[in-house]
């Protein structure tokens, strides 16, 4: 008799949070700490990673994808250390990653591209065609699956990128600025997809658009200069802002209030340009 439920599916989890960072520091270049003493717990759900440009969002996501190694502190994924030397193959099989500016082979069709990524992610050979088709359908590219990548618009390329990130059914999905280049309708569809994925996956979405967070995220992580400023629900973020803070929506006002508080408390503030 075939088992309807596999042993792996009913195995007890040995970790409380998919992602756990304690005192995490990541150096970029010779001396700059892009992430500087971060304590963070992220479980199942959609987490919006919010912060000004240069806050260290991309560095953090690269470290979560095990591409960058922590300089100090601990970073655990699924209860296993993601630091040190080592290939982390078992960890990487459970991760989906979409870099901010991702490259691809222009001659490949969407299907070839996602198939190739599925092979790189060690999806079992027999499962690749079905997994690719499912991923392509989920991002709404099924009718363009046999078109070359170079024939796609920017938004479609980004959706192909999301398809390759979810092709291995990851438990941790890392998306770096995924909404760039999507038109408003695609953005709505993308938010639906995020909520769907967030039901059983730990999704980390970095963005600098506050409205993305309010619409799709169950949890907001506000990040500035490599440190955690705030973690809570979008409602709590909105509640942090008052009428006198700059911004067009409650979320934006909360965002600027928290960042202003932080700048005031970390005085003497470093000289920073208006931008």
């Amino acid at each position: 008799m075939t088992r309807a439920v596999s042993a792996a599916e009913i195995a007890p989890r040995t970790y409380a949070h998919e992602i756990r960072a304690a005192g995490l520091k990541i150096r970029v270049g010779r001396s700059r700490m892009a992430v500087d003493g971060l304590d963070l717990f992220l479980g199942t759900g959609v987490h919006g990673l919010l912060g000004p440009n240069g806050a260290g969002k991309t560095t953090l996501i690269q470290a979560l994808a095990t591409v960058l190694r922590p300089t100090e502190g601990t970073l655990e994924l699924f209860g296993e250390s993601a630091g040190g030397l080592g290939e982390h193959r078992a960890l990487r099989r459970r991760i989906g990653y979409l870099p901010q500016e991702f490259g691809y082979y222009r001659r490949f069709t969407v299907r070839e591209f996602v198939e190739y990524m599925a092979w790189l992610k060690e999806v079992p050979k027999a499962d690749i065609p079905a997994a690719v088709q499912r991923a392509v359908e989920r991002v709404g590219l099924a009718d363009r699956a046999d078109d070359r990548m170079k024939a796609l618009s920017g938004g479609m390329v980004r959706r192909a990128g999301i398809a390759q990130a979810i092709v291995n059914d990851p438990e941790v999905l890392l998306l770096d600025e995924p909404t760039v280049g999507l038109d408003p309708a695609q953005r709505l569809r993308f938010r639906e997809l995020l909520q769907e994925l967030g039901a059983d996956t730990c999704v980390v979405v970095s963005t600098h658009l506050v409205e993305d967070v309010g619409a799709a995220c169950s949890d907001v992580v506000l990040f500035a200069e490599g440190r955690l400023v705030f973690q809570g629900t979008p409602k709590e973020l909105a509640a942090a802002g008052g009428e006198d803070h700059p911004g067009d929506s409650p979320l934006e006002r909360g965002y600027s209030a928290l960042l202003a508080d932080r700048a005031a408390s970390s005085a003497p503030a470093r000289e920073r340009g208006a931008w």
Partner: protein
Amino acid sequence: MNAESAGRAEHASVELIGAYARGDTDIAADEMWALEAHLEACGVCRARLADAVDCGVPAVASLVEAVWSGLEPELGTAAAAPARRRRRQPVWLSAWLTPVMAPWLAMTVGVVLIAMALDVTEPAGFGEGVSLLLLLAPVLPLLGVAASWSRALDPAYELTAAAPRAGLYLVLRRTASVLAVVVPVLLLAGWPAGVSAAQWLLPCLALTSASLALGGVFGVARAALGLAAVWAAGVMAPSLVTRSESAALDASGLPVWGLLLALGTGVVIARRGAYTAVPRLFR
């Protein structure tokens, strides 16, 4: 318990299948679950279930009939799936060779042919007493190796570097495919030019392994290009200027090359974890 052997050994009883077809409510939940899981895997029992429905349960049979007659006209008119375009790059090929590497390999083959032509024709004032092919042979695979793992050349580098297969496994795979193209071409070209493989094969493998070993520290592309530059300046240039065979390719040098190959391989194996992360020196 093995699903297949169990499927052969035991089937659901006719009574149970009959009860299931009639929709009896007195089947225990665990029995129902076991039966449904078994039906999914066992064609014999599905056939029995179909028979049981046909002769025992007219209500279900007529329902199935009605669904079929409703669907059939639509199935007839549904457009056939468009024929898949002939695939240009099957997965097994991408697994060995990225599209970025192809032009570099083509260029390497071109360089081999030119070197061979110069060696065979020996134009006046050039290449007398020196075989250009022999001088080039040890470093030619390095170009392909550099192209196979270069951040600047490979647009999909970011995605590839974060994948589980990245690291030594993929580096070795791509290096093997470079050698599989370059070495046979060199062997074939060496025959008319009178260059014996014994002279260049070991230095060639040694330099390739050295580029991978250094690649763990500097990045594979940088290491390969650096070694090629050192070779060009240290061995090729003096040999071309003095018009004499280089001492580095002497038969007496072979043990040294063998040692270098062993050393390079050892370092690569010992530091196999170093190929996944971006080298710390060059973030």
